[in-house]
């Protein structure tokens, strides 16, 4: 093909007016490497980059640019990830690194029965039961690894740990002092306890509950951060009060309800399952009476009026039975929950993809299993380390 003929074809190509015959001829032309220079020169002559533009789109190009400037970075340093092999009492420690794979055979021999199982190198294990108990004197006890039995005795109250549940019992008369304890869960732990009045509390990950070891005459008062589900023991003479961030209060007679008050969630949600509660926004000095199935919403700045809506309560308390449950939840909402349970930080490489999720996920799955489930909904992710993941579009 001579240059004139080629120029005509390329001009037609640029104009989007290439005939079927022209397509075939040009295709044959570009599939031969020797024509590189000629092609580049003609296109260069026929186009003027200063006369046409397609606007720059941040969300398309920033990831490309980021990848480009990272191509010539050195390989990340190998990192060590510890994986606990819970199925068999003996723990195997595997060392992983990028490009190198080290298996510590000596340690592995302790776990005689270990069956080979496919493990995603960088997988992150789900949370477990556990919490930290802070006694009135400020001393702390890690409740993850303690065995069953009485673990502390304070002012006439026995604190017993039984199958991962903390139980406060008052065997005799107390000395009447108000002694406060705090149970707090880090990310990746949840915990159950029974308060001295028989009220049962489930504490979700990254949450805390502060309560007296023995309730006084007249009232039962506790305070909560994060998320907790209460089954309050009925006692009409002693109303039960829950304070949330010192700004909202729930008054109870005997009832089951859930409070979700994480500081990184946009609102505080109080959901009533059974009985009756009254919710007060102490800053606005206003309240709402809830009936079962109601959810009260207080914005985290406590400046808006309390809102009330009807919900399917099972979804709001699924967490205590080992499930994540989402109703038309956006990706960030989903990720905030995963972050608390898998103890990871979530980064978004480019904005936050607009997606909605519905359904339930078993909390005993590993993070990779959960993320692979979400990936079917086209979420791309990368595990950057034992405590960090990045979401791509």
């Amino acid at each position, binding site marked *: 093909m001579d240059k004139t003929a080629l120029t005509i074809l390329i001009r037609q*190509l640029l104009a989007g007016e290439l005939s079927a015959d022209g397509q*075939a001829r040009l*295709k044959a032309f570009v599939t031969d490497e020797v024509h590189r220079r000629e*092609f*580049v020169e003609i296109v260069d002559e026929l186009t003027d980059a200063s006369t046409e533009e397609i*606007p720059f789109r941040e969300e398309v*190009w920033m990831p490309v640019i980021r990848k480009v400037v990272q191509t*010539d970075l*050195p390989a990340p340093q190998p990192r060590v990830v510890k994986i606990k092999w819970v199925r068999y009492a003996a723990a195997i420690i595997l060392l992983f690194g990028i490009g190198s794979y080290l298996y510590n055979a000596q340690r592995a021999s302790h776990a005689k029965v270990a069956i080979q199982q496919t493990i995603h190198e960088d997988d992150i294990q789900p949370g477990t039961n556990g919490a930290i108990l802070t006694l009135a004197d400020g001393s702390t006890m890690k409740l993850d690894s303690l065995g069953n039995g009485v673990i502390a005795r304070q002012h006439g109250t026995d604190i017993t740990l039984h199958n991962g549940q903390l139980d406060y019992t008052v065997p005799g008369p107390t000395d009447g002092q108000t002694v406060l304890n705090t149970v707090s869960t880090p990310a990746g732990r949840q915990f159950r306890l029974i308060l001295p009045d028989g009220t049962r509390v489930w504490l979700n990950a990254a949450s805390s509950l502060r309560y007296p070891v023995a309730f006084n005459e007249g009232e039962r008062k506790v305070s909560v951060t994060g998320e907790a589900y209460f089954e309050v023991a009925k006692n009409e003479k002693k109303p039960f009060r829950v304070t949330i961030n010192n700004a909202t209060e729930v008054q109870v007679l005997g009832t089951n309800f859930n409070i979700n008050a994480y500081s990184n969630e946009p609102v505080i949600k109080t959901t009533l399952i059974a009985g009756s509660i009254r919710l007060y926004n102490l800053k606005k000095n206003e309240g709402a009476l809830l009936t079962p199935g109601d959810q009260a919403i207080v914005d985290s700045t406590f400046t808006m009026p309390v809102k009330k809506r009807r919900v399917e309560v099972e979804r709001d308390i699924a967490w205590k039975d080992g499930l994540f449950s989402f109703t038309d939840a956006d990706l960030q909402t989903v990720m905030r929950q995963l972050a608390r349970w898998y103890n990871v930080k979530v980064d978004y490489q480019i904005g936050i993809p607009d997606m909605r999720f519905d359904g339930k996920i078993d909390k005993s799955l590993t993070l990779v299993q959960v993320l692979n489930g979400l990936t079917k909904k086209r979420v791309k992710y990368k595990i950057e380390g034992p405590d960090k993941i990045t979401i791509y579009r």
Partner: protein
Amino acid sequence: MNELEKDLLRRISEGDAQAFTSLLKEIIPSLQAVIFRLVRQEDAVREILQEAFIRIWMHRDKLPDLEKPEAWLKRVTLNETFTWLNKNAYRARIFSGLSADAGVSESTGIDNLSLYETQKILQQAIDQLPPQRRRIYLMSRSEGLRAEEIARQLNLSSGYVKNALTAALDFLRQRLKDAGKMMLFLFI
């Protein structure tokens, strides 16, 4: 394309990723308009420009010496377009009679595979740099230090550091070329 400032190119030549981002933001609108007319597929435009940008980035030390940077940038991009057409003629809409907007084309992942390979080659090449040169390169890229700063910390002249960085880039480019990942500095 606007007249590009010398200072921006100088900063890019020293490995300033932010300066490079500003340059790309400036040139992407017109470059993508030209390439789109040649391939008529948005994902292809992205693949092509990604490869071109890697090429440009890996030649960053040469940018301040270019007489007509805009013309060179366009040439590099057109070369990359040819490479793409040469490899992917069967995928190109223009050769199959499909119109530009015939549905959303699914991404093939080719762009990322190629990027991953390039990354691997470069990472291995960095490991093979002589110790002093490697150290200087890492201080520049991983820690984002400027040549003067590296010179001060290592008690070297800044000329020495600049030469070491150029030599390191030369070596990395050679490795890419050996692996068939990059042609030599084309047509300038």
